[in-house]
């Protein structure tokens, strides 16, 4: 065992965490934004809205993320007309993929809002978007907060998959150090500990929110 390899390369490896967090944030916000619209589509009574939205969600939920990253790496340049680079195509893949998961979380949150509230809002003369914005979504967001944080942790872990297209996030950098130093045991233990600590903190926070919500209900 030679733990010096970690202290020597600490700066380089932890530098990758910046990209990891950046990717998590983009995937989270982009996915939630697109997911909101998908969720509304899934709740729509219009068939031509409901079916495409459902097909989208079911399709992406049946795919491995690593394949979606690959797929958009090849597909995106065809649509855009020029090479996009690994970062942008990966982020597009993340947003498209995560939107399908967020839409289901958001749909669950929206369905947890009592129908009477929407009816009351309609009775006061509010329009569809105003009702969503001021009545439904604020309450739904509170109900789905624990699920959203759990998903954020999963995304944080999944950013490591960008490895396959060569993005230098945290795990890729650990891997690069390993190819140079051949110290697999120490390096992957270190990576595991870093991910474990961050994800555990996140899930403790989700548990805390869940308990608070239960307490406010009781």
């Amino acid at each position, binding site marked *: 065992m030679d733990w010096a390899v970690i202290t020597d390369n600490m700066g380089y490896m932890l530098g990758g965490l910046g990209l990891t967090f950046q990717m998590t944030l983009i995937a989270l916000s982009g996915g939630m934004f697109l997911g909101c619209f998908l969720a509304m589509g899934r709740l729509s009574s219009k068939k031509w809205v409901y079916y495409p939205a459902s097909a989208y969600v079911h*399709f992406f939920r*049946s*795919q*491995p*993320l*690593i*394949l*979606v990253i*690959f*797929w958009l*790496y*090849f*597909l995106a*340049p*065809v*649509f*855009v*007309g*020029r090479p996009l680079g690994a970062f942008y195509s990966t982020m597009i893949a993340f947003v498209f993929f995560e939107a399908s998961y967020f839409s289901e979380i958001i749909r669950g949150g929206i369905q947890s809002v009592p129908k009477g509230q929407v009816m009351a809002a309609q009775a006061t003369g509010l329009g569809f978007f105003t009702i969503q914005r001021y009545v439904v979504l604020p309450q739904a967001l509170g109900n789905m907060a624990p699920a959203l944080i759990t998903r954020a*942790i999963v995304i944080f*872990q*999944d950013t*490591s*998959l960008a*490895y*396959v297209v060569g993005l230098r996030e945290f*795990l890729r950098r650990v*891997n690069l150090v*390993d190819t140079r130093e051949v110290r*697999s*045991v120490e390096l*992957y*233990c270190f*990576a*595991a500990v870093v*991910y*474990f600590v961050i*994800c*555990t903190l996140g*899930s403790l926070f989700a548990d805390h929110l869940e308990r608070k919500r239960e307490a406010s209900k009781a």
Partner: protein
Amino acid sequence: MLDYNFEWSILWSQTYGPWLLKGIWTTIHLSLLAWVIGSMLGLMVALARLAPYRVVRFAGGAYVQVFRNIPLLVQMFFWYFAVPALLPREMGRWLNHEVPHLGYYCGVVCLGTYTASRVAEVIRSGFLAVPKGVTMAALATGLSPWNTYRHVTIPYALRISMPLLSNEILSCFKNSALTMTIGVMETTGMAGLIDSFTFHGLETTTAASLVYLAITLCVVAAFARVEKKMRIPGLMERSN
């Protein structure tokens, strides 16, 4: 739009068609093997988490926490790169040089142990959802605690966790794609490999995604039948 020469015939060409089929077959048996490990180990971890001994409960909880909070890809690398280095020198060398398809076995074990941590949570929630009255009634009829567990509680818990277990089996299939990073040529890996020979990655990845879609549809259809059979009469049906 960029000019892109679609050549779908690559998928059934003499060289690459069999490759793709081989990849699909690898995905199927790798995932099923991992599922066997994952469901057995998962049941044991779930039972450990509900055991009357504090140490056993803690060990079960620690297992779930560790495997859930470390990305699967890190676990893959750990099993593939670090475990042979951790073993005694001779054994590590033997693993690295003499064992064919080491990545495959590492992938199965890694995916199995990871799936176990998720299955354990599903089964545990199934156990917690068994009504107390059922267990009490079984004890009242004179069944011993062990027989109550074996013939009443465990089957009941497994039957109500069925719908969620089907999600985990689907995740197992999807997660098997990660074994491509340790050199296993399953569907996704094969799609990448054919791309590196032909530069027609778009066709191959599209084909791969249709394969996963087909696998999902098959598993969903199969589980719909299983769930119908295993449904406990008198309980609510799955809503969606």
